[in-house]
């Protein structure tokens, strides 16, 4: 790998500090630890290889876009896509996935945490990543557009749809706003 010593140090200073953000995105996309670690490792390998060509200022967005690419090209992503229904009401599916066993347990306050996490995990990946980047990584719309490679308008509509689906899923269980 042809990266000189200066780049090496710059990589350590600019890219390594974003490891938690990288892992969090990978973890939410892959939905399990082992796949997420694979994705992050792969992403860092790519990032290191292409770092010489990176001249942008926003290292975090740059790295997250690589994490995302690494995920979508992974086997984990393909398996997930196959498991998604080809058609049908996504909200109903989410409600089902996020649902606890009986209506009574739903109202237990402590369940909100589990419900929210399950409902987010059940979102289609494009909506899930937009929501995670916004609410957990606190990226601006512009940064999310940069990471996901779509126009800002698309980011806005994906976020709106993600939130609408989430609200419906949570409301279906009496836990939602």
């Amino acid at each position, binding site marked *: *790998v042809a990266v000189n010593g200066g780049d090496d140090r710059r*990589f350590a*200073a*600019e890219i*390594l*500090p*974003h*490891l*938690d953000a*990288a*892992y*969090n995105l990978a*973890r*939410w996309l892959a939905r399990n*630890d*082992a796949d997420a*670690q*694979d994705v992050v*490792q*792969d992403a*860092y*390998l*790519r990032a*290191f*290889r*292409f770092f010489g*060509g990176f001249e*942008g*200022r*926003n*290292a*975090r*967005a740059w790295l997250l*876009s690589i994490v995302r690419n*690494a995920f979508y*090209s*992974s*086997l984990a992503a393909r398996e997930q896509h196959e498991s998604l229904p080809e058609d049908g009401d996504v909200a109903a599916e989410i409600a089902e996935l996020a649902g606890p066993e009986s209506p009574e347990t739903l109202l237990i306050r402590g369940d*909100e*945490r589990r419900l*929210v*996490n399950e409902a*987010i995990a059940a979102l289609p990946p494009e909506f899930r990543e937009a*929501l995670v980047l916004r*609410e*957990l*990584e606190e990226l*601006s*719309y*512009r940064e999310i557009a*940069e990471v996901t*490679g779509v126009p800002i308008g698309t980011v*806005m509509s994906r*976020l*709106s749809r993600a*939130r609408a689906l*989430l609200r419906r899923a*949570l409301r279906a269980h009496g836990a*939602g*706003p």
Partner: protein
Amino acid sequence: MSMTCHDAVPLLDAFLDGELEPARAAELERHLGGCEVCRAARRRSERLSAAVRGNAVRHAAPDALRLRLAGALHAPAALPPIAPRPAPVHRLLPLAASFVLGILVTSGAAVYVDRADRADETARELVASHVRSLMPGHLLDVQSTDSHTVKPWFAGKLDFSPPVPDFAAEGFPLLGGRLDYVGGRSVAALAYGRRQHVVNLYLWPAPGTGDGSTRAAAMNGYNLVTWRAPGWRYQAVSDLNAAELRQFAELWRKLPPQEPTAGR
């Protein structure tokens, strides 16, 4: 022409995210002022956002992964596989080339888009200091949520006495403080929490009355807000979103003026 509910509702998310252009936001606010239905919709959106932020897990990278990556930096081709699964590297190598282009295009866009990311030397130093502070054991020299513990700690270590307010009630609890070195001088650094994010506030005495304006910048994925108050210079750095970082700055600006003297 005034805004209807039909126009207003789709804008609520962007409005609450602080992403609506000012003119549009003002229009929306006017509509909200006179429309209880849309105010209720706004409250629902706020509750949802709070439920997500308050409950969704921000997964931290496992230590094993951290160590493996740090160790592999010098020989990235030799990344060990993650037991017991095979490393993805091999099966992905044929694909790698096709992604080079995608990544390069993305990073090119980043350069173009982030015009606001023009940062000066101080900003660079501050971001470096912020990143350093997040490494284990570097954030705090004095760890306390009590201003009355943190403030005296600075006495005798600096030639000025920084104000140390706690903003726990406003959602920015004080975590503690440390000494830092920025722009060729010792400064006070105060750390505040906001959900899973850390805000570092750097402050030091500076002549002048301050012009009352706040400047925001972004660099390397971090947001910076800087402002002056009579006798002081302030710099806040965080990976927190820009809107809330400005909120944090506003809390500071509302404090009564402080004398930077009386160090010891």
